[in-house]
């Protein structure tokens, strides 16, 4: 579904990604773990062309999207839930969701809205409320719901657990699994919360200083002594 071939990215002279090879197959949950500043979020935004990959190729369902402008990429069935949620704070929940439907140019809005509301019933009760007044967890649900409004086949989640209470994190992760198992959505999940991410992922990649240093199945990475030492034990 998504394939990165030797992708590098730079912020000015600083290299953020170094020849990253990564594959997400249809129907998978793939997770990308790594420390702060490893390049996880850069990888996500590079998929959307900001910053543009300085070398290498990005293929989405076989099509080369490396040089497409961001708003065109968003119309190809790939939706991003950005880091820090980035909901439109002064606009209502409903307006946020409508904006999520932009790539479809107004098609299937009603059905998708009902789908999002059945997934996150709390959003329906809050639909006239300003997004900025929602709790952190509700904002995360809104950000995911907004992304789902465009009927993506591939969902990119950038640190969905950021700043949330453990109980809320569990709900979010359960939803991610449900989206994958029941709705057949392919998911690329970037997380600092490595343990939980690896538990639900089919496969995982470990990013360090912009390079992929390890890859394997979720279970294998969970058991890997290197991963345990670097990302798991310290946290538990």
């Amino acid at each position, binding site marked *: 579904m998504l394939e990165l071939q030797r992708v590098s990215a730079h912020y000015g002279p600083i290299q953020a990604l170094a020849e990253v090879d990564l594959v997400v197959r249809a129907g998978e949950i793939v997770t990308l773990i790594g420390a702060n500043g490893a390049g996880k979020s850069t990888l996500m935004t590079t998929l959307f062309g900001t910053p543009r990959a300085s070398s290498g190729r990005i293929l989405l369902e076989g099509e080369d999207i490396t040089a497409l*402008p*961001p*708003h065109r990429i968003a119309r190809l069935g790939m939706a991003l839930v950005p880091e820090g949620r*980035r909901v*439109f704070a002064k*606009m209502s929940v*409903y307006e946020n969701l409508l904006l999520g439907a932009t790539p479809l140019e107004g098609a299937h809005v009603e059905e998708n809205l009902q789908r999002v509301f059945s997934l996150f019933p709390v959003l329906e009760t809050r639909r006239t409320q300003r997004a900025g007044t929602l709790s952190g967890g509700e904002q995360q649900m809104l950000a995911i719901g907004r992304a789902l409004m*465009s009927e993506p086949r591939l969902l990119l989640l950038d640190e969905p657990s950021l700043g949330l209470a453990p109980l809320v994190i569990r709900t979010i992760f359960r939803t991610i699994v449900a989206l994958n198992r029941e709705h057949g959505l392919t998911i690329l999940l970037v997380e600092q919360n490595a343990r939980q991410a690896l538990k639900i992922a089919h496969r995982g990649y470990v990013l360090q200083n912009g390079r992929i240093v390890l890859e394997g199945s979720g279970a294998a990475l969970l058991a890997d002594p290197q991963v345990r030492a670097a990302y798991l034990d310290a946290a538990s």
Partner: protein
Amino acid sequence: MTAAALPAPSPLALRLRDALVITVLGGLLALPFIGLVTVEEGGALAVRTRWGAWAMTLVAIFLGRLAFRAALDAWRSRKPSHKSAAFSSTDAVLRRAAGTSLLAVALLLPIFFADNRYVIDTATTLGIYVMLGWGLNVVVGLAGLLDLGYVAFYAVGAYTYALLSTQFGWSFWAALPVAGALAALFGILLGYPVLRLRGDYLAIVTLGFGEIIRIVLLNWTSFSGGPNGIGNIPRPSFFGLPFARSAEGRTFHEFFGLEFSPMHRFIFLYYLIVALALLTHALVSRLRVLPTGRAWEALREDEIACKALGLNTTTVKLSAFATGAMLAGFAGVFFAARQGFISPESFTFSESATILAIVVLGGMGSQLGVVLAAAVLVVLPEVGRQFADYRMLVFGAAMVTIMAVKPTGLLARREPTVRLNPSRSSAP
């Protein structure tokens, strides 16, 4: 009444300390301004001290500050921060009622003041500022792009009409769409180079753009008449009927069998600006509920999220600039037609600042707020005329008071653009 109870130092002590600090600062400033005075002494200037007046000033500052704080605290504790999360519908009803009654007042005004040219003229000026405020509201309030050179588009509209009418004999109505389109083109022209800029950087560039337009108009004498401006701009006619005592063909008062009165034209101009302003309002409110307007607001909230959602931020920004500029262009045409004479003097930075003040004071993005703020900014200096020398002082004090009491503007609460039916059974 228990306002937020302050710890350790009592509120009174805090207020006294605050007033004391302000008094010291004020005293330092007042020393040269009030404490020293120059007098003529045998043909030469000498400096005298006025300790008495200075002391009086200090007392006035101290007491004034105490009163100001007390009033401010009383105002704030009056309503314990009612930030209801949901958009309340009674609020919407109130707004609608206020809007409707304002409209009624606007439409009926000339009936009650048919002989009062001063009132009609002031109301017409107010109309121009309301229209400009609504136009700038698109750029600043909705799209969140700080534009300090908005007056440039107003100038483009005014000069377009002035030149087309004096050089080529175009009528007001023919020139209106052309001037709007040209102003929109200038909006896009400004928009392109500033696509990547935001906030203060954008403000600086737009400020420069406004000055460029004004300075070009000032110096390109063969084109714009330079500092002499353009005079004898034809006044708009009533669908072909001129407002004159006598003319070739029929005039307005002959056609309607009225006694000639110079007031007819002023009342017509007034209704014209009301109509233009209403058109602006209709356009902007309509755009707000369409995807275009939603995209503007989303851009203001978060540009990165916009890109991720597939919005083309380039077209969103340019459309906001173009729409705002077009509306300013329309207002400019009206301004030129009403004044009959324009020169670069009318398009200085202080105009841009006034329009921006209207938008900010009204509460960014609020249409009704713009009307109220424009009323404050246009009518207040007029009322202040009787205070002669203190006019600008009164004006400044009013601005400070509004910003101190309502820091987010007169009407800061944004209306949702879509409402759902409150009762709806959940889907199967």
